[in-house]
């Protein structure tokens, strides 16, 4: 994989251009059955940066995000066309093991979804299924510390993960995801069900995490996108010839450009809240 292969309309700033993209799509079409949910997305996700996906509801942000770690494989009607490369390797090539992909590309969901197990067992779950040989206690402490939850739970690691507050549960889910030490962390509206303080904690966390991980976050919160992300991709939906709605990538650039100086008018309208 080398950077020159990237499509020309990709991220413009020198910093992003120098980084090798971790994930890259070319003319990616995503279908549910015969329904084309997302069409012709070509973009790249830069290394060790936060990429935000924004756009109106139903434009396919979650759908695209879930392609990145092949979580859509659980949906029978799901199908992709085009290329989705991870370090130059097509993720949907027949010989690629989806389980292996998900170990490298982790996911945090909109609704906190801890397992009905203890806090400790939640964090070590990924390590256990991956046959991790190291010290589990140390892994728990490290992951919970990274997720800014350690101080709050260190005395009750054996109690249920479900007994935590919503914001704590979400940080537990983040700890659980980073305990597997993935390269990429996908977050689908991770703060949607959280209060402002928990949201702030998770945003701070993202700043910390991007030192080590590449992050892709879906958000409906414009302030959040401008606060946490380095790169922003704006998606929209339009009617196709057959009268179905399908999502597409409008533009993709450094976050400051998207918010202050977008190329497309619809982006300008969306980020300024004048979207109709």
């Amino acid at each position, binding site marked *: 994989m080398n950077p020159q292969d990237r499509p020309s309309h990709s991220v413009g700033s020198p910093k992003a251009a120098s980084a090798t993209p971790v994930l890259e799509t070319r003319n990616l079409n995503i279908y549910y059955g015969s329904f084309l949910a997302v069409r012709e997305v070509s973009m790249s996700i830069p290394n060790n940066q936060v990429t935000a996906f924004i756009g109106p509801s139903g434009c396919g942000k979650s759908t695209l995000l879930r392609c990145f*770690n092949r*979580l859509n494989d*659980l949906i*029978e009607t799901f199908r992709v066309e085009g290329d989705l490369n991870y370090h130059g390797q097509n993720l949907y090539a027949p010989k690629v093991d989806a*389980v*292996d992909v*998900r*170990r490298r590309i*982790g*996911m945090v*969901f909109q*609704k906190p*979804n*801890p*397992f*009905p*197990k*203890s806090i400790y067992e939640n964090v070590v*779950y*990924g390590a*256990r*299924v*991956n046959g991790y040989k190291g010290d589990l206690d140390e892994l728990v402490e490290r992951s919970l510390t990274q997720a800014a939850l350690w101080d709050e739970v260190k005395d009750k690691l054996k109690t*249920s*993960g*479900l007994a935590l507050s919503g914001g704590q549960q979400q940080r537990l*889910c983040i700890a*659980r*995801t980073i305990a*597997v030490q993935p390269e990429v962390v996908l977050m689908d509206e991770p703060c949607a069900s959280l209060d402002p303080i928990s949201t702030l904690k998770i945003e701070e966390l993202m700043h910390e995490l991007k030192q080590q991980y590449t992050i892709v976050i879906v958000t409906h919160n414009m302030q959040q996108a401008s606060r946490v992300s380095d790169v922003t991709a704006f998606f929209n939906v339009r009617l196709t010839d057959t009268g179905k709605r399908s999502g597409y990538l409008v533009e993709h650039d450094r976050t400051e450009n998207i918010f202050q100086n977008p190329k497309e008018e619809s982006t300008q309208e969306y980020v300024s809240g004048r979207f109709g």
Partner: protein
Amino acid sequence: MTVRNPSSVTRPRSDTERILDQSFLWLTRLLAYAIAAVLLAIAFQVLVQSLPAIQRFGVGFIFSQDWDPVKESYGALPMIYGTLVSALIALLLAVPIGVGIAVFLSENFLPLQVRTVLVFLVELLAAIPSVVYGLWGIFVLIPILRGFGVWLFENFGWFPLFSTQPSGPGMLPAGVILTIMILPIITAISRDSLASLPPELRQASIGLGATRWETIIRVLIPAAFSGIVGAVMLALGRAMGETMAVTMLIGNANTVNVSLLAPGNTIASLLANQFAEASGLQVAALMYAGLILFVLTFIVNIFAELVILKVKKF
């Protein structure tokens, strides 16, 4: 529920509404108490009727192997043993099969239409009358199991469980028929509790790099555990109380025989067989045996609650 705070009522309710409300409350309360009353009445009646036998034989009844109406000497050990062993055989076979089927039917290994048909067929198993199971057992199951029994006896006869020549009816056919009869209970309830788990659990596990099997075994089954235990306990209750099919297949021998190939008896089957001709002390002895079955089922249910409580921690 019964406390009504007048200040929280924004609109005065009409008298009819109040009365209806009150009477509905009382009706449901009455029904709830009625269930408890019926249970107590039955237990009391059984206890009273078994008193002569309790006074005569005491606790020894549980440990004695005698069942002799002529000498008026009664002991229920063979039937208690038979009840527990036949139910245990059924559980050992039905739990793995039933939970397996439940997992299979709650996953998308098959197209939805096929699964729906299969679920319906499994539930249909529960609708077959037990006398039909008994007949099927006599004409189909026993001939099939006889060959298997002979093979077990010839090759593993040194092992106490298979140490007698198979006689046709016996503990093994009774256990197998019970397996088939409790399978739909275990399958249906376990499947329901697996299917009602939030899809987020599965996604979380898959998203952490677990395979489908790891997800099923480490997350889904533990999360559905209380439902599965409930299913197993309900099934155990059914297996211990099942009468007709067991009577037809177990051989009705009032002796304790460790071999599964030998005939035995259960409490329920004993009651069904002897009640018609019983009188005097024999009725009391049968009631006493019934009381023991009652207590056994009670213990099983308490045990189930304890298991669920222990697991519910999370």
